[in-house]
């Protein structure tokens, strides 16, 4: 199972092994990562699972698809180049070691 690390606004880190195929919003909620909320359950109707992908991982996580790109218009924290909705990133073996930075949502 790939290991994912969330870096919080205060510098604290939370790491967890995530089952392949699960999305990283549900993984964050299951591991009590604050500020990843996931109000809509991962169906692209809120933007409360907003994260910044660590630059080292940007190539592997890829870019947001069209609907996700649109929903990134209403993030609470500022949108940046590496903004993603974490419900749209699925855990894969390739993402083992992934680092996500969590803004205050």
């Amino acid at each position: 199972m790939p290991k994912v690390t969330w870096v919080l606004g205060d510098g604290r880190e939370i790491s967890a092994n995530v089952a392949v195929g699960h999305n990283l919003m549900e993984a964050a909620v299951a591991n009590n990562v604050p500020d990843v909320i996931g109000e809509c359950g991962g169906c692209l109707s809120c933007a409360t699972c907003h994260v910044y992908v660590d630059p080292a991982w940007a190539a592997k996580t890829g870019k947001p698809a069209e609907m996700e790109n649109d929903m990134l218009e209403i993030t609470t924290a500022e949108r940046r180049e590496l903004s993603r909705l974490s419900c749209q990133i699925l855990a894969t073996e390739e993402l083992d070691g992934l680092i996500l930075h969590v803004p205050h949502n």
Partner: protein
Amino acid sequence: MTMTAPIILVGAGQASASCAAKLRALGYDGALTIIGDEPAAPYQRPPLSKKYVSGELARERLFIRPLSWYAEQRIELRLGTRVVKLDAAGHRVTLADGTNLSFSRLLLATGSTPRRLPAEIGGNLANVFTIRNLADADTIAPALIPGANLLVIGGGYIGLEAAAVAAQKGLDVTVIEMADRILQRVAAAPTADFFRTLHQSHGVTIREATGLAELVGKDGRLSSARLKDGTILPADLAIVGIGILPNDDLAQAAGIAVESGILVDGKCRTSVPDIFAAGDCANFTWRGQRTRLESVQNAIDQGEHAAACLLGEAPDYDPVPWFWSDQYEVKLQIAGLNRGYDSTVLRPGKRPLSQSIWYFRGDTLIAIDAMNDALAYALGKKMLESGKPVAKAAIADPASDLKALAS
């Protein structure tokens, strides 16, 4: 004052789960108990009529939090049991097994129950379903057999979602709607037109202005439906989606004011001290009118709001409501409440099956239905939140830049 008795949350749905998490986040360190009549820990209901009943989403992925979270947060879950009596003055509840529990403050987050068809017209026949609980979806899922005849009674969002799932599984689906058109209560005609066409393109028969006379059974099991116009439709199963009723009996029996739900003020307070309500069951004043919101957004936001209220001061609850529905390849996203609209503006989208309907009262934007158009939803929601005036003509012009209009 020290308070040793726990805060009790009655109901183990989204509102209680959100309230409990927020209570802890706000620093409430005392005893906290959630009581629910279903055996399951709090779970997400929206997927039940969508990806869960279709088999795409595994059961364990419905749960809002893992069980370990409740233990870590010292939240006691008392599941599979019902509060049968609320003694408001005595600050005590009685469970079905006779256990009495004291509370310092209590939240009623008892949710709602689907309306059923009366037994006299076949509402109690086997294979006549409603969708509300995990148990309902678990009962319906195995009955979704390709080739079977499904009758959906009620052309609202729940019924249409069920119709979409069943049509995709190869059932023969008919939706009957008593009103002149589907989505009559919740959406404008252009939105209804869009979904009617969508369903028809997937082979679903939509019969509007069509009343049900009775469901007919054979050996206690549904076999056909007789419509008011005399038509007989064969039916192997029926899904009834004709609205929900707030669960306010417990409150009423406790002497708490109810009227289409448990009456609360902007601070989630009922008519009785130390007793609060949130979620589907709560009736609050929003923009000057009594309102119940049957949605996840409200369960989460009002549940969290109630947490602040349970602990002391909070501003009045003032949400921007939002909803969604998934049907086939279409995602519908709704922001605001269209209650009292007097005109709509259609804005074509940039993709296939993409458009948005903007609801106005006078010149004021009050809601948006966005079909496969997340940008319209997102920016429309932004406009509703900021209250910035927006011109109808600008919305109707597909070349206008929504981003500029919203900022």
